[in-house]
């Protein structure tokens, strides 16, 4: 069954110079357990597409189905809750609350979900261990390296038990070793726990690890290859 499906979605920005079709009639389907990279030159529409799929933005035309539910029909308030319970996010930077420790950052998302305390504690340990940060739970983001911060972000995204995780250039701010390491962890989570990852990237080494590569140019999918 498709965990995510877009049906010819379009997102148009109206600028003084004319309209920009940032996403131009894209139809894609993702199955549970996919590990997909969205690639393409700068300005090709990767971020716009991920935002649409994550319910952070609305398409001008077309529809987006998550587990067969059309999220375009949800109002703003429903959409926030939808994101909270169904989608994990990893951004390029500023993923964490600086005043909270790694542990508290991960736990926070589950508090928003109103999960019981015992479950939160257990899950926090579990996901932080999964990203290899069991020993840094009590550290605040400022005390962690960029790579470690992104791993906490991945842990946070997993903690809420989402249907899939969207990551917009998660490695863009990392050195190549940390980037490699982050990808390894994501890969392992995908393989062992069949977490669905959809991420955008510029980095050819990251692309090389993806099992499916979707290439965008000017808001259109020009290639969609599965290895």
């Amino acid at each position, binding site marked *: 069954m498709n965990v995510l499906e877009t049906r010819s979605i379009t997102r148009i920005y109206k600028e003084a110079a004319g309209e920009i079709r940032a996403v131009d009639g894209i139809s894609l389907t993702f199955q549970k357990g996919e590990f997909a990279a969205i690639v393409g030159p700068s300005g090709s529409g990767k971020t716009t597409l991920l935002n649409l799929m994550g319910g*952070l933005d609305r398409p001008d035309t077309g529809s987006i189905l998550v587990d067969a539910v059309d999220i375009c029909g949800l109002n703003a308030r429903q959409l926030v809750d939808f994101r*909270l319970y169904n989608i994990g*996010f990893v*951004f390029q930077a*500023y993923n964490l*609350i600086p005043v909270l420790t790694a542990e508290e950052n991960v736990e*926070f*998302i589950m508090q928003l979900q109103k999960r019981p305390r015992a479950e939160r504690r257990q899950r926090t340990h579990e996901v932080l261990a999964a990203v290899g940060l069991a020993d840094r739970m009590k550290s605040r983001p400022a005390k962690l390296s960029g790579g470690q911060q992104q791993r906490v972000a991945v842990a946070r995204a997993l903690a809420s038990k989402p249907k899939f995780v969207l990551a917009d250039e998660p490695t863009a701010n990392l050195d190549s070793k940390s980037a490699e390491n982050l990808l390894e962890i994501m890969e392992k989570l995908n393989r062992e726990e069949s977490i669905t990852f959809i991420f955008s990237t510029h980095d050819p080494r990251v692309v090389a690890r993806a099992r499916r590569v979707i290439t965008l140019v000017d808001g259109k999918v020009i290639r969609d290859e599965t290895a």
Partner: protein
Amino acid sequence: MILVIAWKNIWRSKTRSLVVMAAFALGVFSVVFGAAVMIGLMDRRMYNAIHNEVSHLQVHHPQFADNEDIHLGIRHSDAAADSLARLRGIKSVSTRILVQGMAGTAEKTAGVMICGINPEIEKHVTDIHRVIPHKGGDYLSGDCRGEILIGEKLARELNLAYYSLHDTLPRELLSLAKEKASPALDSLKGIRFVSDKAFEDALNQACGSTLSAKSLYRIKRQSLQYSLRKKVVLTFQSYDGELTGAAFRVCGIFRTKNAMVDGVRVFVNKDEIAELAAIPKGFAHEVAVLLEDGTRPDEVKAAVSGNFPGMLTETWKELQPDVAYMKTMVDNIMYIYLSIILLALVFGLVNTMLMAVLERTRELGMLRAVGMNNKRVFRMIMLETVLLAISGTVAGILIAGILIAWKAKTGIDLSYLYGEGYEAWGFDTFLYPVIRWKEIAEAMMLVILAGVLASVMPARRALRMKPVDALKTE
């Protein structure tokens, strides 16, 4: 959790937050302490008004207040007073004769209100017997005739009180004098100074410097001497219109610290003045009533009035409308002060929170993107704002509370700040600040309300940008 985050967020900009907290602490401190002083001053004024002056209720002839005519009084007052005293809630009742007259010594005269009282009964109604200063003689004795109790201010006007230094000089004066054992100071011993100015000049000169108002006030109070047992002649018109007079001996001096009482009232035995002024038996000009519980005199008023048909019964609020008015003012003064100060503080608070929100644009965008809804974001900003205000407020209340608790024990002496000025207005120069926890709690509520209002703009600002745009800002 949101509360914890809000609290932790406050400490991201330590200095900025501390400045805001300090502003709240200072503002609230000054309001709470200022109000406590005002309430203390007012409570004292009220206590004095009731216990030294008007009691809780008074009965007069309806026209007596117009010109205090000796013929306008209450007949059979003693019988009525007796039955009144048996009513529930009535503590004690005093019937008085009031006669306008002149008081004269060999040197001076002054207009007075002669107040004929039964000394023993009066003790249960007013505190006059308690406000006789050290070396000020005695209260009226019940049976002895020819005694008069006069106020300190009148005593000074009649030259029955004067300043004089004894062999042991006041310690304060010694510590202030340039040379110890100075001959200039010694030469002052035993000299009587009748006027304030002459005494102050002499003190300044002997010390070789200008003494502070505070020191002068203290030394003057310590050096004031009373001429007791001196003769005072009272002259007045009797009930049948004849000008009469009689000589009395000063048995004591009282000091209510209200110049309007101390300078005007003289107390003599009621039976004696009744006889001298040929006042009919049972006739009185004033009935003063003290209640068990003075908080609601209006409720007893009708019952009192019923005992005196055709007479005018008034509560202390009606008799001293200025005191009653000031009391309402003072009761509300904290709210007025606090509102004004909060208004100013709220501007600072809004500004601080706007800055805090602006700095966190991306973080707020992230939080909203991952699933924090508007209500929760709003609540977080609101809590942060309120906490910022409340923590400063609590500090301010704490400091004020400690200071008030301390000063409530030791008292605050305002005498050196225009001591005579306060007394002229009937205010005591020594006051005990009073803290009212109900008002403190209400002040807290007001601060919380101000915090909530102050948070609206920053919270709306936090929600104005769409999460995607907030995340994109560089």
